[in-house]
């Protein structure tokens, strides 16, 4: 195949681009070049059979240039011939010359100590469709005859980044994901009857999902069995439920969504700069049991050890014992925060830049919500007198930014709990809830185990992130409706 994908080829591409920048634009031009070789392979299954199977292999070259201290432009291409790269540079320079000056241009990263990440897993990098099919088969079989759907994915990302200030870094990462549901269809019959709500279209779904740096670490059979267990648990008669506030236990898949929501708004540097974030740095805003970090250098990480601007990754405490300590930044928000927080302690720089940072703001690359002392999910449920067990959240959307109010739905299993026991399913429920208030001091118990789950946090080549979260028990969760109400 023609696209450059080896380490040395990627290094050569970015250096060739920077040489071309100097040749066409002169030495005063600031430029960052990045070459990503991304191999994404994904097998989807539905109705317990494989129905889509894809492999995409591409090298994308990104270039950002700035003239006169801030006339900037970004270009990218999947074309990598010498001629195409020269065209890329001329396009970028021409665009930058026509741009108004950006007074907030943050400059380049420049040279610095290189961060070392987990690196790729060779077997995962080399995996083909047969390995993915084996994962799917294991998930399907473990579901014990229930209908299943989902996907198995492997990715290899190698990225080289360099700038005209002297930065040059290269790294690779791998990721493997299994994510699926098992479905107890009324027609296929747990007992041959309609769904527990009496709704003929009722689906009793359970979910099993996991992400790992190494494909070999994924236990697809365990995930399929888990999904089936939750699906079968919904065979009992539906429990009536009124709208209103209830205590809840959120399984890790549901906590994942809460954490992702907070990271995209409250703990984004852009939100803090622009005044839309409700974070109160240095205050006991959240329950002391909560500690949230970004840890892209962890040995199990699927992230690269630097972001798309070349900023090295580091372990960053976003929340320590319930006290917000930092937000995720890219170079622009670092500069803006430094300018607006004069007299206040400087915030740590994080590696949060991605391909859509200019419009979406930076995001954490490898979030971890630390486990606590609350025990297993069953232990957390045992502490509920009257409440809900929520297995998954879906289609959550920000309704009010400052209070971090989100609305969304439960999915893949929601159960009524009385006197510490699960008494039956309640179907799909809508919630409208301030995440910050749900996690307020005194409102939270944190489960003892944590799971690594897949989530697309960024829009760049890094793709699916590994987010590690435990289960949570929350004192209040505002149920505002249901799918059949």
């Amino acid at each position, binding site marked *: 195949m023609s696209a450059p994908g080896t380490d040395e080829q990627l290094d050569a591409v970015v250096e060739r681009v920077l040489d071309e920048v100097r040749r066409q634009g002169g030495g005063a031009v600031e430029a960052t070049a990045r070459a990503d070789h991304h191999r994404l392979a994904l097998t989807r299954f539905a109705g317990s059979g494989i129905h889509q199977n894809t492999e995409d292999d591409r090298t994308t070259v990104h270039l950002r240039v700035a003239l006169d201290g801030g006339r900037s432009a*970004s270009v990218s291409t*999947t074309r990598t011939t010498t001629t195409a790269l020269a065209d890329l540079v001329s396009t970028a320079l021409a665009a930058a010359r026509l741009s108004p000056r950006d007074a907030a241009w943050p400059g380049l990263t420049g040279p610095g100590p290189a961060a070392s990440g987990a690196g790729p897993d060779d077997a995962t990098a080399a995996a083909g469709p047969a390995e993915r*099919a084996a994962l799917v088969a294991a998930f399907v079989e473990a579901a014990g005859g229930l209908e299943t759907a989902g996907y198995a994915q492997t990715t290899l990302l190698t990225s080289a980044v360099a700038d005209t200030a002297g930065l040059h870094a290269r790294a690779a990462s791998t990721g493997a994901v299994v994510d699926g549901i098992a479905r107890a269809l009324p027609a296929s019959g747990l007992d041959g009857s309609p769904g527990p709500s009496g709704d003929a279209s009722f*689906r009793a779904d359970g979910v099993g999902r996991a992400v790992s740096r190494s494909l070999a670490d994924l236990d697809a059979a365990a995930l399929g069995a888990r999904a089936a267990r939750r699906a079968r648990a919904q065979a009992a008669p539906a429990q009536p439920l009124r709208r209103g506030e209830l205590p809840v236990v959120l399984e890790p898949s549901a906590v994942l969504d809460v954490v992702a929501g907070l990271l995209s708004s409250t703990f984004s540097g852009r939100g803090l700069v622009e005044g839309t974030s409700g974070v109160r740095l240095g205050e006991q805003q959240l329950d002391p049991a909560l500690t949230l970090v970004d840890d892209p250098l962890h040995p199990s990480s699927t992230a690269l050890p630097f972001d798309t601007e070349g900023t090295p990754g580091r372990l960053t405490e976003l929340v320590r014992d319930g006290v917000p300590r930092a937000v995720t930044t890219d170079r622009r928000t670092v500069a803006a925060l430094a300018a607006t927080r004069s007299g206040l302690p400087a915030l740590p720089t994080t590696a949060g830049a991605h391909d859509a940072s200019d419009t979406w703001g930076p995001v954490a690359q490898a979030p971890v919500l630390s486990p606590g002392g609350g025990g297993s999910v069953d232990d957390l449920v045992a502490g509920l007198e009257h409440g809900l067990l929520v297995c998954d959240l879906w289609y959550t959307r920000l309704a009010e930014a400052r209070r971090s109010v989100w609305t969304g739905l439960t*999915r893949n299993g929601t159960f009524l709990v009385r006197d510490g026991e699960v008494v039956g399913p309640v179907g799909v429920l809508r919630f409208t809830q301030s995440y910050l208030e749900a996690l307020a001091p005194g409102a939270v118990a944190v489960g003892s185990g944590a799971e690594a789950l897949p989530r697309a946090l960024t829009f760049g080549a890094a793709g699916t992130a590994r987010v590690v979260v435990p289960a949570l028990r929350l004192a209040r969760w505002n149920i*505002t409706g249901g799918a059949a109400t």
Partner: protein
Amino acid sequence: MLSTASPASTAGASTATPPPTATPDPPAAVPSAAFDLAAAAVEAALAAGARFADARVVDRRHEALTARDGDLRQLSQTTEAGIGVRALVGDGWGFAALADPTGERDARATGERAVAVARASAAVRSPGAHGQRRVELLPVPPQRGGWASGCARDPFDVPLAEKADLLVGVTQAMRAAGGSVIGVAEALSAAWDTRTAYVSSEGARVGQHVRETGAGMHCLALGEHEVQRRSYPAFRGQYGTRGWELVDELDLPAHADRIAEEAAALLSAPLCPSTETTLLLGGEQMSLQIHESVGHAIELDRILGWEAAYAGTSWLDLSRLGDLRFGSELMNITIDPTIPGALGSFGYDDEGTPAAPRDAVRNGTWTGVLAGRDSAALAGYDHAGSVRADGYGRLPMVRMTNVGLEPGPHSLEELVAATDDGVLMEHNRSWSIDDKRLDFQFGCEIGWEVRAGKRGRMLRNPSYTGTGPVFWNSLDMLAGREPGEWRAWGTPNCGKGQPGQVGHTGHGAAPARFTGVRVGVRG
């Protein structure tokens, strides 16, 4: 009966967009070498054992500009070029893609790789009712020809300085008009130029050249406890298969002061009441209502369960196609990729099926779905033509084209005048709907009381919630009679599929009235 409605122009100086052109040969913008690559890939896939194969060679340019608070914050230009090959081996599909193939050898290797992937698909065969059936494709006569969207002013020929000046200028204007409470003022434009050469093993050979353009702006007013947003002309802009003339027509500068002042005013406006009442929706919010609760619900792959684990399924049961009551008699929804200038328009979908209009809901009865050749054949449906992919590297899948609500006999003014007690809401702020596309909750940017037939106080944080068919059955008045009330709104960021794909869709909509709707949901 199908709508004859077409996108209405807004005020302002404009250059009329010429109509799309269909030709017996591919447009000149699609080089013959691209067809050679596609043909080589298909030939190689057949030689490797495929019983069907098709290939798309796609060359796409994208440009995005974002201005914020008086600075140009993003100017990006992207070129994405490559080949994507689909192969059907036995009853297993495989897809392989390669960026920037340099010759037929690359194309052939990609075709062979698609076959290898397809063979692995057979390793896990569905035991379900559908899975026992052989994968077939709905017969479509192989097409040979071309299509180009209309474009009066090529967006890539418009000087960058002109674009930047426009966007930077309106952000400055919004900040000035809204005062110190305006925390963020942002404007954006985007353009795509996509050239596709499609070849299939059945003999299809189709070329398309599609140019898409859009722009919009918004501002945020920051209060002590909350943030208020206003946007124009839609919360993420307006887009179409048109040239820069679309942006000229939008006339962003003429609306900058108003939306900034409204954002500031919202900070002190009373809350939308929490009650059940008559709801009037503006056309832009209607377009999203249609997108989420009708467009996605009628996607055949969802109905068949192919998206069950991710995007979700549908509450619609195929056995009820043709007799299910979806909404009131006023509800007439069409699937129409032939609307000139709408964002979901094309000449051929990404399986080479020619564009054709079709009813989805007629007089409130569900009559049609969005389908591809394999899903249609599996379901026994007689129409495909709604399969598209996000670039060369993604598998074509069922996507909305233009799914729109035909205009009604009234005007917005008449809707207001006929309402004793209600709330008018405009411009989306937040959207969420369950995985069967039944239970939804939308937040809007701005609302107004409607009392005794008149528009009253501005309301902040308006929201409403409901269940698809119940809501659509409560549709009792529909506007669109007056010029500009019905418009094909463009949605440039419809997400679906794994790996994730972004789709461009269009939605004709006009203001509408619904009775007995729960509004003012609190969190």
